């Protein structure tokens, strides 16, 4: 910039600093303090359960959240999807996907390992494993499995708990949320709520 325009630029800057600083401060107070506090105040009054994490309690113990999945490995329980959070699966303080690319050998291995584990827990079941049950979710905290993935595991869980298959299938239906009006969302089963009910049905 040459010397002739410096003076002009000075006058352009003049009278800009105070509005910039003051308005920044005022708008920060409105959008960064008042706005979140108002939303918190209303949400805590109007939707206290939802605003605090949709927690599930049994007795006086908090056993989980309707919205946050948990890891299951016992054949007596329905298994959740794979989770890539670290250091342990379903770490709800550090959400993460696997970020494995479609050609990454680690993806094929993770899927094969899961398929093998499912087969080992239920040797008589020769059906193909539903894809969601063999893959990691985006958040690593997916609370759901597909209805297909629940049906796939129903026989195993019924046998392990000495429950009639129809009882287990009834519980799956009870915890299934369908697609809304045939277009919004996917049919899904809440794994934690299903397993909690299983413990009630056959402790």
């Amino acid at each position: 910039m040459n010397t002739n325009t410096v003076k002009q630029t000075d006058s352009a800057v003049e009278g800009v600093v105070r509005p910039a600083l003051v308005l920044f401060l005022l708008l920060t107070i409105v959008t960064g303090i008042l706005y979140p506090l108002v939303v918190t105040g209303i949400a805590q009054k109007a939707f206290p359960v939802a605003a605090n994490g949709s927690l599930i309690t049994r007795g006086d113990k908090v056993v989980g959240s309707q919205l946050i999945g948990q890891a299951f490995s016992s054949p007596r329980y329905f298994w959740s999807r794979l989770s890539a959070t670290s250091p342990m699966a379903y770490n709800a303080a550090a959400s993460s996907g696997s970020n494995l690319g479609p050609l990454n050998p680690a993806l094929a291995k993770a899927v094969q390992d899961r398929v093998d584990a499912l087969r080992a827990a239920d040797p008589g079941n020769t059906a193909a494993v539903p894809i969601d049950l063999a893959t990691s979710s985006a958040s690593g905290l997916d609370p759901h499995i597909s209805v297909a993935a629940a049906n796939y595991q129903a026989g195993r869980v019924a046998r392990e708990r000495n429950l009639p298959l129809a009882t287990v299938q009834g519980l799956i239906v009870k915890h299934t949320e369908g697609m809304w009006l045939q277009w919004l969302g996917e049919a899904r089963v809440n794994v934690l709520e299903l397993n909690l009910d299983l413990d009630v049905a056959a402790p």
Partner: protein
Amino acid sequence: MTMQAWILMVVYMLVLVALAWPLARWMTAVMDGKFAFGKRLEAPLYNLAGVRPDHESDWLRYTIGLLLFNGIGFVAVYALQRLQDVLPLNPQALAAVTSDSSFNTAISFITNTNWQGYAGESTMSYLTQMLALTVQNFLSAATGIVVAIALIRSFKRRSAGTVGNVWVDLTRCTLWILLPLSLVVALLYASQGVIQNFSPYQDVQTLEAQTFDVPKVDAAGQPIVDAAGQKVTESQTTQTQSIAMGPVASQLAIKQLGTNGGGFFNANSAHPFENPTPATDFMAIITLLLIAAALVFVFGDMVGDMRQGWAVFWAMTIIFLVSVFLATHYEQQGNPLLANTDQAATRLQAGGNMEGKEVRFGIAASALYATATTAVSNGSVNAMHDSFTPLGGAVPMVLIQLGEVVFGGVGSGLYGILVFAILAVFIAGLMIGRTPEYLGKKIEIFEMKMVAIAILVTPLAVLIGTAVAVMTDPGRAGVANPGAHGFSEILYALSSAGNNNGSAFAGLSANTPFYNTLLGIVMWVGRFGVIVPVMAIAGSLAAKQRLAVTPGTLPTHGPLFVALLIGVLLLVGLLNYVPALALGPVVEHLQLMNR
């Protein structure tokens, strides 16, 4: 595409237009200063700030005001992160953010990129989330909108020396457009299960104990390695799950509306607390495109010819719908390497490529989200783009590389596509041998120089940045996936930063001094390297006469211009990236098909 995906796409477009149309009327009224009650409430603010609201300025002063305002934002966001360990509202006692990460995040949030180099729930205190990040979600969105408004005014005005009052525009946009919308949307989210509290993280006792391996560390905290150089691990068991909490709904609402996209949690809108149901997901996809779509109608409204707005709308919509189709199609096809599983779409499962997707969203809602969030420079995600199929993942990448003009960021999308529209009439003018004009304004040498800068500065920053990252050790060190996909991760990161999108092929370890610095610089260039020439165009156009329409005028509405605009967009916007795309997604797709 499944029938469900088709219905979703159609319902989505109808709801979007039905909401964008009335919003556009409201935005026009507010920005034209016709909201009398709001003006009364603003008056004390202007008094405090020493602003004379009836006093307009030229483009240069307007731009300097904007740059300074964003500069203050940068300092504030940086400082709040560096000091969060001694500031209140930090129940998890999180440490101060590192200097390079703070630098990156500060630029990221003032430029409306909202690239997440950090993991929200393990890095940012509640105070930082509110006072640094939520505030910039508002202010960077307002910055984009006022630049677009200034540009629209320059078409409307005749022989004018001014383009508006930057302080008045910023204040009105924040208080009467962004704030009320956010309030309503935040409460809708909270009613559906998005959390909003200041509690410490909630420990719950899980049904089953879990055993997992952690690296063994010595007394100094360094990992122990065995004779073979492998890290030694030890087994731990836990029956406790610690669930992250926080004021999420308030941040989420403006993150979507302001096309920001920086999530409260690391998993962003895939996290069940940030996007618990298909209904919140649909709302998220609507709100992320809402203001950008409304601005197209604001443009038509303000220049006094709605047909001009519709022409731009159709050019954007056609590209958008084709993209939705392609992304859904390739994701639903699934991964041929996983033939040991059942990937068919049935009434009982979504099927397809479910790696990195949530069951409640399945394929259709994930692909629609991915397309919308990259067509618009939102960058929030409800599925991990890194795990998309090669061509399914190429759709978001290409939409970003087009320059975020298919609806695009709030404001930035509109001024971006108007720059392309000016280029389109210029090219058409050359073909028919007439002086090009757009909306009655002659397009001359100065405008074309600025158009060239605005269009070329981003691809230059992206491609040079990609080259630097690929050629250096710290750049290659961040790559997570082997082969062509690793290159795609780098190209996507630079494209996302340069075009201020903020989504990622998130396997890339970008929270390193190298990437934090490189991406920070690219984000800054990609934002202000476009805003300044656009404001210069606005200043120049405002000063011109508005010519009457004659039989010789090239009509800039109607299907012919829509086709011309799309052609110029694809030719100029995309051609820069074709060689790089061939090395990434194209190669990967061919490899996948040949296995």
